[in-house]
């Protein structure tokens, strides 16, 4: 089963190596890992998609916790969350098929961000199903290049994966 972990880490040099090293060393499978700053510039947030049964997940979480730079881990898989991924796709697009491609782009509410002589770059954001569907639809035109960010995710509503340094907010 795939799990989505939201992990807050100290924004220290080497923290990504520590996390990635832990996964490879202990033989856990990362499907994707994204990292970036949060609202607090000292803290970065990783979204890690990892597959494994409950036992593996328990170990992953506990081992991650042992890293001094890891502040907080939330397995949000079973919660209500929003997840998004961004993908850039360069497709072969000579003028005869451009119209067709643009229709697909419209349907998925994606965007064309570059027009070359024989190619288009399409930008699309969405959850996993949407991204897969877009890619599927574009395959017939010839995908020349594809890059995806990996998943980012956030809990819905009043639940947070954040730490409050400010005690007053805690009540």
């Amino acid at each position, binding site marked *: 089963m795939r799990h989505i972990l939201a992990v807050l*880490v*100290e924004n220290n*040099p*080497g923290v990504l*190596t*520590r996390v990635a*090293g832990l996964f490879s*060393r202990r033989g856990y499978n990362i499907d994707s890992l994204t990292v970036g700053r949060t609202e607090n510039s000292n803290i970065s947030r990783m979204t890690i998609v990892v597959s494994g049964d409950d*036992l593996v997940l*328990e*170990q992953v979480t*506990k*081992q991650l*916790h*042992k*890293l*001094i*730079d*890891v*502040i*907080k881990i939330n397995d949000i898989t079973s919660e209500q969350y929003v997840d998004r991924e961004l993908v850039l796709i360069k497709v072969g697009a000579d003028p005869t098929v451009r119209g067709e491609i643009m229709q697909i782009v419209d349907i998925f509410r994606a965007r064309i961000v570059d027009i070359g002589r024989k190619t288009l770059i399409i930008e699309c954001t969405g959850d996993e199903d949407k991204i897969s569907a877009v890619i599927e639809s574009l395959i017939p035109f010839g995908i020349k290049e594809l890059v995806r960010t990996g998943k980012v995710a956030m809990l819905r509503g009043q639940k947070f994966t954040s*730490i409050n340094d400010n005690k007053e907010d805690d009540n």
Partner: protein
Amino acid sequence: MQLSGAEIIIKSLKEEGVEAIFGYPGGQILPFYDALYDSGLKHYLVRHEQGAAHAADGYARATGKPGVCVATSGPGATNLVTGIANAYMDSVPIIALTGQVPCGMLGKDSFQEADITGITLPITKHNYLVNDVKDLARTIKESFHIATTGRPGPVLIDLPKDVQVAKTKFKYPEDVSLKGYKPILKGNKGQIGQAAKLIGNAKRPVIYCGGGVIVSGANAELFRLAELTLSPVTTTLLGKGAFPETHPMSLGMLGMHGTKAANYAVSECDLLIAVGARFDDRVTGKIDEFAAKARVIHIDVDPAEIGKNVKVDVPIVGDVKKVLAQLNEKLEQQLSGEWQDKIAQWKEKHPLSYGANGKLKPQFIIEQIYEVTRGDAIIVTEVGQNQMWAAQYYKYTRPRTFISSGGLGTMGYGLPAAIGAQVGCPDSVVIDIAGDGSIQMNIQELATAVHYNIPVIVVILNNNFLGMVRQWQEIFYDRRYSYTEITGPDFVKLAEAYGAVGLRVTEPNEVKPALKKAIEAKRPVLIDFVVEREENVFPMVPPGGAIHKMLGG
């Protein structure tokens, strides 16, 4: 006043109460050594950086205080690696300080540059590359805190030369604030209640205790638990000394070379109380058959150890000492019954034994060491048969008196670790029990011992074999002794060449006099015991086998 980075390191070490440093200088750590020169801090110059790491480790295990080792960049730092890995596996608090090329030269394959923080990432509890002198004091404070709290472990601080030279104001921080590091110390009340219930209902409990009991200083609480529950106690290799092995309820060690009584008891028990132990494969053998009839309570400060190898019924995360104190309060005195009788029978029927035949047996030598020292020495070991016999035939009654490389099994650990232990405990008799193979891995540290007159006693059980490997070849590889016959130098002459006392013993009746002489010498002594060559360590659980199915003994 502005201090240099090097001076800040010295001051910080003093703030931490450091009394001994083991190290070896070189180009990129020169500013530190310059500040050390008239600092009043005691530094021991080892003969190989691996020796420094092991000495710091031995010091830490013997005293309970963190050990400190220092090396230069590149080869100096990489020479520490085995020692750091060793400390990591056995949860020993050491601080490793390494010189590094100046910040501006990092990443350029500069002379003697090695990415030591990268290299030691998986074998340190945490590590730092300090690139601003302003971070130095805080880093050192954090390092000691991390190394010594929760589940202890090694921390490495990499110190670029320019950071050692740069100046800043010095103020040693009072506390540390690490958002991601807050070890859980007190046990959860609900879980403790559950555990007490299980214990109350158990008919055949066994306490299985590991190094965590010693680390947390919980031997008194453990003793109380054993008394209240009338549970027999078995320990791991690293747990030796947590419970007096002279006690009727002591089962001795369990696992691959454990006692039959211990392995039978664990296999038959209906409740296993695991305390500060981690279900290592050398302990459990075939995991599905380990304590197969038992519910399991697991108490450990490291949550990641719980449920890692076996299924646990009641996990309790917390400092062992605190948790046991909490638990004991909830327990009622149990009465002796069939189980206790059974234990006594097993112990009586299956004592550890060897075939005494008038020749010089390694087991006999260990027994004699026990008698001569009245069980009051600090026993350090190398790795192999020597280590197992030292574990089996000497009775440990106090914590921190058995010091051995458990998790990593590092040959060459013993001598430098003994030096560290002796530095930490100058009034104790410290004996390194060695094989003729292991001792040659860090024999150069005899020079260190002689130079500072650190009166360690090296006992070589000399079988001219890499004995433990030979034993496996005998049993599992049809006696094909592939590259396990090993020759050594004339150890007596070698000891003398180093300036130590060298003795040789070939007959059983010479053992005691030689040991007495060594203890009285008050200087480094090496005794070359020429023992029966093909003696085996028994009982033995074949690797991957169930622990109640033991060979020999």
